[in-house]
């Protein structure tokens, strides 16, 4: 009986350690991802939402010569940063004003 209780306590302790470890990892992850997003925005100060009247629309805005292959799409609660790969290969065709 006593042996069983000891086993149960040890199991609970392991679960507790695993949970704390997981929470600590998630906290670190969250902290670093926020820092990365802030740093990217700082490197590209021309990117901003220019018109406060556009709140219903929230378009994605960048300057004409953005950091190469980097776009910051403003969507949802936090900025989504991703890279587009518009170099390294040729598209099969191109859309432009009637040519």
């Amino acid at each position, binding site marked *: 009986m006593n042996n069983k209780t000891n086993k149960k306590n040890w199991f609970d302790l392991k679960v507790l350690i695993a949970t704390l470890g997981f929470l600590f990892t998630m906290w670190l992850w969250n902290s670093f991802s926020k820092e990365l997003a802030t740093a990217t925005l700082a490197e590209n100060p021309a990117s901003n939402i220019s018109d406060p009247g556009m709140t219903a629309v929230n378009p994605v*805005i960048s300057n004409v010569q953005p950091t190469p292959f980097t776009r910051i799409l403003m969507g949802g609660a936090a900025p989504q940063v991703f*890279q587009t790969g518009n170099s390294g290969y040729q598209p099969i065709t191109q859309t432009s004003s009637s040519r």
Partner: protein
Amino acid sequence: MIHSTEFKAMGCRIFAATENQSRLSPVELEDLPGWFEGWEQSMSRFRPESELNRINRSAGHPIKVSKPLWDVLKVAEKAERESGNLVTPAIHDQLVAAGYDRSFDSIPGDFQGPGRMDENETFLLSDIQVESRTRTVCLPFDCHLDFGGVAKGWAAYQAARRLRSAGSTLVNAGGDIAITGRMSDGSFWSVGVANPDNPSDNLEVLKLGRCGVATSGTDYRRWKRDGIWHHHIIDPRTGLPAITDILSATVIAPTIMEAEMNSKVAVILGGEAASSWLEENPVLAGILVYKTGRIVYSHRMQHFLWRKNERPSH
């Protein structure tokens, strides 16, 4: 394997590509120039004997029209209705008055020709009498049609539809692109979005399945008159070239006809109204390039952009 062809028609470059497992090019690709020639002969305002010009000369009298021209008329009616009358083919006279009175290749860079640039009355397709049963059209006096981009988009759509039996197909008619679907292995077609300041460069590369994509702009079909730049996108509300802060608008839509119409609306509306127009329609995605150099991507555009390290198969 991708089979392709390229030629000139409708005053622009036509490019078509079909993807299938065969090493042999589909015979339909060889028929493509003939199809475009037939459509151009019917719908060009720069060919004196075209069907469109016969209709334009018969204003006030009912005239029976061919099936392709009737279909384009119906597409144009839909575009006019859905654009809130901002896109209509009944702006022929305003285009001529602005100086677009001949094939674009023949317009000199700077000319002083005659033409009235006053605000003038514009017609709408709803002013035209049509009889579906007999496919007859009767234009009001002083009303003339120019199908322009509508005909080009329709032609790209028709060509892609005819070619799709040979495999997944992409048809590009002067920047208006119709795609029948992804390639046989499920991969996307990649299409560049021209940088209006340097068209040999791409602003973005899009990954596209079944859809239409079109770009309208004031950056290319424009000319100088009396020292002032004019362009071919007429605002029917004024009868004059649209006063807009947009240099080019690229729109992705379910069909090329919708993409063509909505890209034109975005240019005419300009300002924040253009991005609102794209955001409010859930089937549209777009990139707006403003004259200031600002580039606005609609939210849904992110689904169509290649991420770095993603690779197309072709």
